[in-house]
């Protein structure tokens, strides 16, 4: 048993930062991003299901349907992998919303909000830290792909550009989850909603098969689905035949998501916590 307070707490009260300037917004965001990464390190199993699904899909689809869909597993994985990479990263985007939902129901939020720092740093930092999750998911899927025969013609540069673009879009999409996280009553509700929204987004896209064989009404949705646009851009980047128009479109869509959902998040955050 520890003898509590062997050293008087007063001995540590002499180091006040009273004269120091208030913490900058960027420093506060960095601190919260660090917190978010620490949680990933302490509870990696929390992200296990989100990473398991794309890994399973990559392996199953390649070997189950590869021969039938594209003649051989090896040629199908060239088509499939950009799709499962996007799926892996996008499934991770819900964690920011989950984390915010958990935080606003706990006492720790009172401490954050009584600090002399930019009040939204908590939200911005939490979502920024989740970029770490996206990178972990991306690296796992890319390595798995390379292992089972995926050979991107765009080389290293193409892969890096592709992962980068997917991460940018995922960060933008995470603001949607932040809004849902602040509106939902419980983390379970957030998970349930994520299931309902993520699956149509990722499946009803061109991630797994060419939409040419789909019925017309479905094609309309698949063409408009931002995930399809992202997957198309990814394919061209990995293939080294990047179409700047496609890439620009994804960046514009990302900017639009942030422009709409970030202010909404800040508004809800202030309301939910006051």
């Amino acid at each position, binding site marked *: 048993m520890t003898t509590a307070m062997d050293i008087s707490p007063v001995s540590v009260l002499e180091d006040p930062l009273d004269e120091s300037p208030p913490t900058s917004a960027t*420093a506060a965001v960095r601190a919260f991003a660090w917190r978010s990464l620490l949680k990933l390190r302490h509870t990696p199993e929390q992200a296990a299901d989100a990473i398991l699904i794309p890994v399973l899909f990559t392996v199953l689809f390649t070997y189950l349907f590869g021969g039938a869909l594209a003649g051989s597993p090896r040629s199908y994985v060239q088509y499939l992998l950009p799709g499962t990479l996007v799926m892996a990263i996008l499934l991770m985007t819900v964690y920011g919303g989950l984390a915010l939902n958990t935080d606003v129901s706990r006492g720790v939020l009172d401490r954050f909000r*009584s600090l002399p720092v930019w009040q939204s740093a908590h939200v911005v930092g939490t979502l920024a830290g989740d970029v770490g999750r996206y990178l972990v998911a991306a690296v796992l899927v890319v390595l798995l792909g390379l292992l089972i025969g995926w050979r991107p013609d765009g080389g290293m540069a193409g892969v890096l550009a592709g992962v980068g673009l997917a991460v940018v879009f995922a960060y933008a999409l995470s603001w949607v989850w932040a809004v849902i996280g602040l509106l939902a009553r419980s983390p379970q509700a957030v998970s349930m909603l994520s299931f309902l929204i993520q699956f149509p987004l990722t499946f009803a896209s061109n991630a797994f098969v060419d939409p040419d064989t789909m019925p017309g009404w479905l094609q309309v949705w698949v063409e408009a689905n931002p995930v399809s646009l992202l997957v198309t851009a990814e394919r061209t980047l990995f293939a080294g035949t990047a179409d700047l128009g496609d890439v620009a479109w994804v960046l514009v869509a990302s900017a639009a998501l942030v422009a709409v959902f970030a202010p909404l998040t800040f508004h809800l955050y202030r309301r939910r916590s006051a």
Partner: protein
Amino acid sequence: MVQPPTQNAVEAVGLSRSFGATRAVDGLDLVVPAGGVYGLLGPNGAGKTTTIRLLATLLRPDAGSARVLGSDVVSEAAAVRREIALTGQFASVDGDLTGAENLVLQCRLLGHTRRSARARAERLLVAFGLDDAANRLVATYSGGMQRRLDVAASVVRTPRLLFLDEPTTGLDPRSRHQVWDLVHELVGHGTTVLLTTQYLDEADQLADRIGVVARGRVVATGTPDALKRSIGGDVLEMRLSSPADAVRASAALAELTDGTPSLSETVAEDGTALLSVPLSVPVRRILDVVDDAGVAPVGFDVRRPTLDEVFLALTAEEVAA
């Protein structure tokens, strides 16, 4: 015009906040002088926590205003936050991080560099007896350890005003005393502590001044002693040899004390009787009257009402009003 330096840590006037139809804080007036411990004492649901949250800039008042260390809690919230620290009713530390990480985070948020944050966190952990548990997740800490970490996080930068919302609720007696010691040390260092509690003995032990809160208002303020005196002052307790004596004595005294309700008789198991007389008249006159009635008391005691009696009297008045 230069404003005179404020002498008060908190000045609230007509502070109000409702949640739906519930008026949690309802026209609360409060002055907390700088220095020492101020205890907000009240039952569950009296509005103590809402008051703390309003003063700590976590909630906006519907009506009324409050200044904390001279700054308005609404229009100058940022200035208030620079001077205060808050330890909430539910652990305001992060269970998913280790104790050390919680403190490093707090340090970083308060402007420490990465290196100085680590050094500061380490010193705090040692000082609060948590160094052995530094690298364990806080979710595995006992209630007392979480509280200590919570207070440690609040003194990363020594606040001028520390809010402690029910700091010892749910703690075992040993951890409770540790928190009390800590509060004393902080006060010795010049910090003003505003704490809420439902425990009378805690308010009695810790607070220099007490505000009794009921139904969203402060219904009485003063030092613990003054509050005890305020309801009829000291009490003379006489032990009489039989209940019959007590009846005779109290009949004789009724005239003297205008039939004050605090005149009470109780019969002890050994057959003697206790008669409590409020000391609103000199002891000598009471004794004379009792003597004239032919009663000889076998013992005396002068005591102050307990804070329990004060509290019940004050909150009963409030309910009646």
